[in-house]
């Protein structure tokens, strides 16, 4: 476990999830058809 500080891993999982959301926003998220 020497190489695995848990807080760091946990916080970065949040960041990775956010990057996933961004990829969805750029590629799949439906836009307003009126725009």
């Amino acid at each position, binding site marked *: 476990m020497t190489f695995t500080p848990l807080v*760091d891993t946990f*916080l*970065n999982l949040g960041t990775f999830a*956010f990057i996933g959301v961004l990829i969805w*926003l750029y590629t799949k998220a439906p836009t*307003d058809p009126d725009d």
Partner: protein
Amino acid sequence: MFRNPLLLVALAVTGGIAAWGVIDNTGLAALSATTVATLFASRGWFIMLTVSLLLLVAIWLALSPYGRIKLGRDDEEPEFDTISWLTMLFAAGMGVGLLYYGAAEPVSHFILIDEYVSGPEAAERARFMTNFHWGLHAWAIYGMTALVIAYFGFRKGCANLISAPIQRVFGQRAWTLVVGWLADLSAIVAIAIGVGGSIAMGVFQVEGGVASLFGLGPERGGWLPLAIFALMCVAFVLPLLVDLSKGMALLSNIAMALAVALMLFVVIVGPTSYMMSGVVGGIGQYFWNVLPHGFATFTFFDENVEGWFQSWTLNYMAWWLAWGPFVGVFVARISRGRTIREFVVGVMVVPTLFSMIWFGVFGSLGFYGILRTELPILEVVETNINETIFFVLDQLPLSFLTTLVVVIAAFLFIVTSVVSAAFVLGMFSTGGDPDPAVKIKVIWGILLAALGLVMLLSGSIDAVRSIISLGAMPFVLVIHLLVAAFLRALVKEPVR
């Protein structure tokens, strides 16, 4: 007012932070410092990636055919001529920080870097780091926030709200309403804490100047900063009660003119060729290294360097993010009718060049003192960073006058910033009302003062910076959402 949940929650959050700071100042400062250190250690890479991407997107926009798109109707002409526009941009983003850090920052970096490389090389690297903190990346944060606000405000007719682009592009859905609401709240909190921090910094700066003018030593006690703070509060609450927006623009221009006059004076009476060489060398060094350095995270260095990277580079980026929505609204308002290309060049390149000239002059003056004389500049920076610029000015003629100029300019920068911030906070918290009610602006003015007092009580610029960084953290995420909405709207534009 009581039927507006965003306003109530925003007032409760910022008021709660202020109350906490008054009751348990040490606790707030300590918690901010440890939380920010944890966040910076784990997400430093993401912050640097974010600011570098913002810069690359801005450069791509300027070079691409999208650069021809106007921030307004296609036939709209710019509201202000180019010179006035550029002058207003200078004053918007930097203000009191330029005065505070002009000589202090390059010398602070020098102290650390000198432990690793020789004196002259340490000075060059310290100059680069200062230019990096105040350069294209800072203005990319401001510029991209402003660009999104301007594009959706002037071209799409949206309200001046951080949530507006998200809801416009992705529609009125449950997630856009929730995320939009949180984005508005995070912008308000970031602005309030960021401007509160600048009030404290302005008070520290004016205090240093007054102490230098009247020869008051460190034993002067805590009455002086509180007296300056009280005077500042009177100066910014009065203009909020009556509409003095034109007067504020004038005061801001006076502050900027004083700063520029001070710089010219220093260039003429100081070691001119040394400073000019410092400026020119700094510009070349900056543009040659800036893009790769935007991705530098100092991963393999020791704890000293890691701590320095967090407390300077990451802190600065968080600071610019905190001010982003506030400066963004202002820059957007004065940029109506410009094309995206003009906007990117004007907002990012020109202020960066100005910062490099400024820090080239004041930084070189500091290095002249260190490398060519026996002056104890390093000790001054280490023991009382607030008084660095006054110590440096003391080595030049007419130091009483130049110190007075710094004090007046710092005071004016803070007063005009707070008045504008109270306006923007009023607008953001009332659904984008372009003319928020006087009582809302006064409430925000008082809250800004309370936050300023809290940071003042913390007594140190480091505590101020960590509280600002904490307030700005959510905006690191929000700015990505804004850019995503903007780019998805942009690709629908017909470009030739």
